[in-house]
């Protein structure tokens, strides 16, 4: 499959009053054409910042400090502001988390989606733009598109608003759509609808999608491949099956254990991962997950682990996978899968 986006060693940091926050510390991945890639992580893991870095939506105090992101032949981190504006919405678009606050409250939704077209398709007439918007509304299953074209965001329910956002993102037939937690702010039943819609659209249009979420269950349903991020780095990258059945990272293990399963027995407790995410002002030396890892060793706090390639599509960053790692208390070498 053709690679449409190649991110290499991306580093992003923010200047704050308290110091420099290194939110993304060496992230690399590839996105294939037509693929739905999931990025999973907690708040503060750097997953959103990674995607914002691609479109340079970091605010005035954020900057990509290292690395590159090749979109075709173009390095997104190095293009001019004018080129970037053409790419945003035109070639790569984004769907944000909270549709209520992400839509301008005083402009009708139809106009907001049409703006996308008027901006990127020079010479398109207003009528043509409007009819295209109506097509899009139908595509995302917004009922009575004609009537709803002139409505304002507050006149829609949460799920409907997100459909508007999706329509907006698809308006110019972008190559890549980045969906940043698109269903987190919605009810579970609506969530399901939106996810189904996204999957259908992706299959119909063949758009490549980067799907960012903290919910492993969603990833399992939608994505073919997953990145697990923590502390600004990619912990594990794998195909869905590999991730769930051949898990190769303690953090992923922890995530899987903490998700409730239908076939859980009644008395079985959910195991949250103890502790809280690291302070990115003073990122820990070594593996970012080591303070919370039940299997951590001295070496974990001293050195960042290298990536171990477990298959053509599966890699993981953990010392315990290395050939010199001991077997004792090592979940990946058959000893003591429960750790301490």
């Amino acid at each position: 499959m053709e690679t449409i986006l190649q991110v290499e060693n991306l580093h992003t940091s923010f200047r704050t009053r308290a110091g420099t926050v290194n939110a993304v510390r060496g992230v690399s991945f590839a996105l294939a054409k037509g693929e739905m890639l999931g990025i999973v992580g907690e708040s503060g893991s750097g997953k959103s910042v990674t995607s914002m870095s691609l479109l340079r939506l970091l605010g005035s105090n954020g900057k990509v400090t290292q690395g590159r992101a090749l979109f075709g032949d173009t390095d997104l981190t190095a293009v001019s502001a004018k080129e970037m504006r053409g790419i945003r919405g035109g070639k790569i678009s984004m769907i944000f988390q909270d549709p209520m606050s992400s839509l301008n409250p005083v402009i009708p939704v139809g106009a907001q989606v049409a703006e996308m077209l008027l901006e990127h398709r020079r010479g398109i007439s207003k009528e043509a733009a409007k009819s295209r918007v109506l097509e899009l509304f139908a595509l995302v299953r917004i009922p009575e598109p004609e009537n709803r074209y002139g409505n304002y965001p507050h006149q829609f329910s949460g799920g409907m608003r997100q459909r508007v956002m999706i329509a907006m993102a698809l308006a110019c037939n972008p190559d890549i759509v980045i969906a940043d937690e698109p269903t987190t702010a919605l009810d579970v039943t609506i969530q399901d609808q939106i996810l189904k819609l996204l999957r259908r659209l992706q299959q119909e249009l063949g758009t490549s999608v980067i799907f960012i979420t903290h919910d492993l269950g969603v990833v399992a349903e939608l994505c073919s491949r997953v990145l697990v991020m923590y502390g600004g780095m990619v912990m594990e990258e794998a195909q869905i099956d590999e991730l769930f059945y051949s898990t190769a990272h303690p953090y992923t293990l922890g995530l899987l254990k903490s998700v409730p399963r239908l076939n859980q027995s009644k008395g079985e407790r959910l195991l949250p991962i103890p502790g809280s995410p690291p302070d990115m002002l003073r990122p820990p030396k070594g593996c970012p997950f080591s303070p919370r890892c039940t299997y951590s060793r001295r070496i974990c706090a001293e050195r960042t682990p290298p990536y171990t390639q477990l298959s053509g599509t599966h890699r993981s960053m953990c010392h315990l996978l290395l050939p010199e790692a001991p077997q004792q208390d090592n979940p990946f070498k058959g000893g003591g899968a429960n750790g301490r």
Partner: protein
Amino acid sequence: MPEDLHVNDPWAPLEIDKDDREKIWSQSSSFAKDVWYRFTRKPTSLLGLFLLVVLVLFCVLGPSFVPHSYEVQNLNFVNIPPTFNVYNVEGRYIYLTPNLKLIEVAEDGTLLAPLARINDDGMKKRTTFDMGGGAELVLNYKAKPPQLEDSERNAITDMRQVRNKTYPLGTDNLGRDMLIRLMMGMRISLLIALIAAAVNLVIGILYGGVSGYIGGTLDTVMMRVVDIVSTIPLTLYVILIQVLMGGSSGILSIVIALGTVYWVNMARVVRGEILSLKEQEFVHAARTLGSGTWRILTTHLIPNAMGPIIVTVTMLIPNAIFIEAFMSFIGLGVMPPMASLGTMCNDALSTLRSSPYQLFLPALAICLTMIAFNFVGDGLRDALDPKLRK
């Protein structure tokens, strides 16, 4: 493979301090300390606070150091500025007032006595003054500017500038010392403002508290009343009340006027706070414990609403000062001989051209006071709720 000490084994389990895991990455401190910290971070707030302290000390302690009284008039020394030019006439220093009178001044600037006029020739525009001991001094006011002449009709030109030692800030149009009047005026202005703010505070808190807590129809009615009252600029009402009470009641009438009309802001603020607070858990808990309405209001709700209340009060004060000065300016203020900063400004208008200091000094005092309170109020607002940052 080193089989030695466990300590050096990189594969030894990592000892993690449990606290490290849950570390919260900032220090916690008490609410008051937090507020103070945020307050002091802003340079304008500190400046305002400093200014405030200086001003209060100025008007409270100052009068003890000034030998003059604020109401004693000295018609000999009318409209003398803080610094002026004196002519050197044979070793004695003579000051020519804007009213074309002569005053003898000591070398260090102390005012001595006016020179008596012997006669005035209106035709030639010359006045003769008595220098004592038979000597005379002539003022020629035909010349522009007027000049003093010696016995040979030559202009006396030896001049120097001296500081007014008797009245460091000059005198007003009735010969009263500006410095002491400034201090007393400031006292009055501050007093009026503080009392008005206190009255507004009490009325506003009670009204807003009751309205917000009881809610329902009572709240709607009370708020409609507030709406009606506040449709009019409160200044109009203050004026009307002042007219009604007659100007002679001075401070009392101004305080009543300010107090009856400014509570609306405070009432609205308090009501808003109470509305959002009363649904919180601790209020439900207190009610279940059997606390009465009054108790809940006073011990639970109002203390928690203190933040916005304090900010509103701090902003009420400069408003009140402004209104008082404004009223004095249109002639409805404190009655003489008492002076507030506003009346001083008003009095100074007529002599603006010749004695601008009479306006500038009280105006500066008003400005500094208002700046101080505004800066402190702004700082408090930011410190008490960082989410409300400007």
